[in-house]
């Protein structure tokens, strides 16, 4: 017992030292986040909720009331949601078969598909946009090829919502397939084979075994894609219509062209709040995974 009580003082000291080191390592990114994100964001939120009446500042929702009473603002917000959800649906329709193929297929073709899937990761957004304009635009590559085959009624999606969706889906494929494939690799072959063994066909296996076992990767892909797409700028700016606009383009235009920083700030806070709700979903998903891994 005595030896336990007089345990070496160095152990307490080393614990302290460990704690201090941890704080020192965490401090720079934490400070940057507080100084560059939290404080400006908080200031913005406070400003959007403040009103100046005869030199007196007071609390007010008036800026938000104005935003939601302005048909253009509302239509831009609704348009952003529409684009986000349509894009997400198409991403999952495209990426699920790809991920399942990459999880189960072997050989050269699978390796080639893997490289193709990752390719968009290495193409900057702006280059993608101009490539798509050249490819999809009027008298672009697709138009020319179709006309060779006698199809003359080609109507380009360029400057239409469709072009935004095409661009965003293309950009999101590598990340989504990576996350889904990683999730699928966690499912051991014997889980799938035993389902087949008791009589399940492909669709049943997908719906009853695979899908429930990869809800977490799906939620992660959903939330991170949502954040990226909701706040996207380059693709909707270069490929999309002049109106309605997605929130990123709308904010930039309100700020830069109409010179109404106050309104832009309100739009930004609304965008930020919507995104932080989805961010919360992401954090919860990742945290529950951590807890489960520690349990195992």
């Amino acid at each position, binding site marked *: 017992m005595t030896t336990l009580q007089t345990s070496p003082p160095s152990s307490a000291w080393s614990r302290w030292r460990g704690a201090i080191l941890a704080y020192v390592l965490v401090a720079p990114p934490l400070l940057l986040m507080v100084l560059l994100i939290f404080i400006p964001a908080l200031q913005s939120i406070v400003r959007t909720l403040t009103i100046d009446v005869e030199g007196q500042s007071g609390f007010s929702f008036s800026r938000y009331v104005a935003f939601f009473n302005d048909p253009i603002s509302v239509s831009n917000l609704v348009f952003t949601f529409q684009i986000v959800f349509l894009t997400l649906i198409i991403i999952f329709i495209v990426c699920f078969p790809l991920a399942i193929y990459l999880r189960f297929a072997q050989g050269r073709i699978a390796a080639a598909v893997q490289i193709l899937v990752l390719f968009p990761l290495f193409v900057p957004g702006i280059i993608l946009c101009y490539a798509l304009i050249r490819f999809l635009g009027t008298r672009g590559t697709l138009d020319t090829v179709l006309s060779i085959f006698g199809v003359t009624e080609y109507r380009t999606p360029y400057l239409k919502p469709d072009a935004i969706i095409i661009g965003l889906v293309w950009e999101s494929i590598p990340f989504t397939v990576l996350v889904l494939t990683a999730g699928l690799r966690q499912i*051991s072959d*014997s*889980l799938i*084979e*035993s*389902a*087949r*063994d*008791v*009589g*399940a*066909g492909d669709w*049943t296996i997908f719906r*009853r*075994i695979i899908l*429930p*076992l990869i809800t977490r990767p799906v939620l992660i892909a959903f939330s991170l894609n949502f954040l990226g797409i909701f706040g996207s700028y380059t693709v909707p700016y270069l490929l999309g219509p002049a109106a309605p606009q997605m929130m990123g383009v709308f904010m930039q235009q309100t700020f830069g062209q109409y010179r109404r920083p106050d309104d832009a700030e309100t739009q930004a806070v609304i965008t930020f709040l919507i995104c932080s709700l989805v961010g919360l979903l992401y954090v919860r998903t990742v945290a529950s995974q951590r807890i489960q891994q520690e349990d*195992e």
Partner: protein
Amino acid sequence: MARLDIIHLTKQFGNVLAVNDAGFTVQDSEFMCILGPSGCGKSTLLRMIAGFEAPTSGDMQIDGESVTALPPNKRPTAMVFQKYTLWPHMTVYENIAFGLGLRGLSRAVIDQKVHDSLALVSLSGYETRYPAQLSGGQQQRVALARAIVLEPKILLLDEPFSSLDAILRVRLREELKRIQRRLKITAIFVTHDQEEALSLADRIAVMSGGQIEQIDHPSTIYANPQTLFVADFIGAMNLLKASAQDGVLRLGGKQLTAPNGIQSSDKITIALRPEDLMIVPDGTPDAWKAQVDQVMDLGHYRKILVDVPDVGELKVYVTKSMTVNEGDRVSLLPIRYLIYQNDAAPIEVNRPAAALT
């Protein structure tokens, strides 16, 4: 409850022959073990029977009907896998009911069958647990229940107990045997554990390098291994290099009784079970002088390592009643051995009991 015929079954992966022209019949309600070292093709063979691998050539028939072209979900077989076999997002009940639900059975029937099968594996009351809340042994019992509940014609088991600890493995082995006997189900059990195979099987198929070396009753496999591989793989065996010339069998500097029909050769192997070497009184004719190097107490018997000049180190089993100490000089008499020559079936030599007295 069915008969399985394996006919000239071959599986080739690239230029590797995983299973080479396997052919045998598993009788109705028979418990067959496929035994072999890892990589011998035993799992591939089982996976072909289950339908997870397509054979390169050959046929499989259940009750006379070919199942070779059927996918796993259409075969009347059910498989218990090695590990990670239960779906982690489903309860024990849902795991077992999954296959029944696919067959469109009514809820009441499913309920009854799930409860019966859980009772069979002594896990009644575990319906609402998730796999993560069960021990490894309980998980494999649920996996067994999940396979049995579908009333398959043939039950396939791919090393189902290999990830469990020794005591649990023995207990589950006994339980499996009891269930198989009660249901009279035809079962094929793949294992690399010879003790498991010897204790479970009605017949054992020993595999090596994609080939089936021998199919026999456990006692026959042990007593009369037909190939050197089986002799070496099953049980403990002393394998000794020998030569024969003009009807005389030579082992080191010693002569052994050579049976008729032995050909002159210097590529002969003599297989001698440790229990077939007897310690005899000094001066017994034909006995070998040896020195005891090591004595190991193995519970109900003792294993001793002896050094025989010109022959080498041999394993010998002796009863507890016999006092043997390290360093003792003893006389040994081989009372039974098998002579392997030219890949042919071995020649058995039994020393007449009279010679011992």
